[in-house]
């Protein structure tokens, strides 16, 4: 930045003055509020820069942003209801395949306005293991807390929710500070799986 025609010191001159501890334009600063402000702020910021900070991932920030939803009592929000758009158990495979799979896995996909929510349930000897994910733009899973029964879950580093239980949940709820979306898990079971 070059010096102007008038006697205002430019930024370079101010930085030099700050570094050297000598201020040849002291009397100007006493008269000129604008330069005084600029000098004051440059003194504060000298050697510092916001660029010195490191930035965490969107996922990590989103997880911290939903902490009130995770731990606090939630203020009542209007509940949106998601609809089931796919249920692997409602697509009955051929009898032989059905016998082979024995309903060891169930895949569900829900939709609610801009949100797509997928759940995979896998049968284990002592119950079920679940994984779920929200799809929509940047780290959408982590913008929500998932309520599955009494559990409140945050997404993991792969932006998935993981949990286990003895039964398939009848209802899953995605919570954020602005939204509450409920998904009912259909009990219809045309495949006759247990």
């Amino acid at each position: 930045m070059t010096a102007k025609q008038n006697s205002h010191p430019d930024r370079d001159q101010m930085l030099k003055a700050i570094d050297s501890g000598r201020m040849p334009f002291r009397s100007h600063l006493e008269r000129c509020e604008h330069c005084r402000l600029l000098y004051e702020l440059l003194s504060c910021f000298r050697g510092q820069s916001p660029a010195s900070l490191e930035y965490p991932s969107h996922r990590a920030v989103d997880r911290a942003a939903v902490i009130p939803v995770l731990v606090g009592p939630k203020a009542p929000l209007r509940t949106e209801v998601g609809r089931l758009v796919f249920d692997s158990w409602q697509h009955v495979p051929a009898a032989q395949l059905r016998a082979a799979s024995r309903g060891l896995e169930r895949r569900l996909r829900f939709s609610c306005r801009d949100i797509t929510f997928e759940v995979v349930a896998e049968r284990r000897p002592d119950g079920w293991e679940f994984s779920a994910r929200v799809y929509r733009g940047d780290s959408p899973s982590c913008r929500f807390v998932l309520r599955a029964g009494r559990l409140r879950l945050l997404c993991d580093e792969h932006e998935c929710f993981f949990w286990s239980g003895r039964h398939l949940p009848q209802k899953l709820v995605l919570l954020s500070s602005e939204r509450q979306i409920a998904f009912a898990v259909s009990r219809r079971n045309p495949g006759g799986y247990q």
Partner: protein
Amino acid sequence: MIDSVSNIWQKVLQGDDQQWSRLVRTLAPLVFTVARRAGLNERDAEDCAQQTWLALYKGRHDVKDPASLPAWLIRVVSRKAARMVRQRARQTEFGQEAESTSPTLLPDEELIRLERLGQLELAFGQLDERCRRVLRAIFFSPPELTYNDLAQELGMSPNSLGPTRTRCINKLRKILRNLGYL
């Protein structure tokens, strides 16, 4: 309209979750940076930051002065990170895999420097986008850049840069005063 940290914090205390989210987004880089400087890898630093935010939320009614928030966060995350680094070092001794580096505590001068950076970040976060761009250019671009260069970079006419700078500096100064920075 620029909302002061005090206002944001008051709303957080009244249960406004969106203001909490706003606060987190503003100060998350500061908390994460302290954890990283303490020697944690990215994943551990994110976990450490998460624990710190959780601690702040649970103890939010104990933080009376919003201007002390960056200092509070730095103190807590620094302690948690040091503990985590020690744990990782012990795991390494027992032959488990660990990516963390030197298990040293951050010196006080570095904590103070980070605290000032945090307040600066907080102040910049409260400026409108135009002022943020102008002031970052004024304060942090190389001294050899001329006004015309800066104006061109900012997509402004050289004549309007001066008045905009003055207006933005006044806003920033007001915010920094609120934060106790000046």
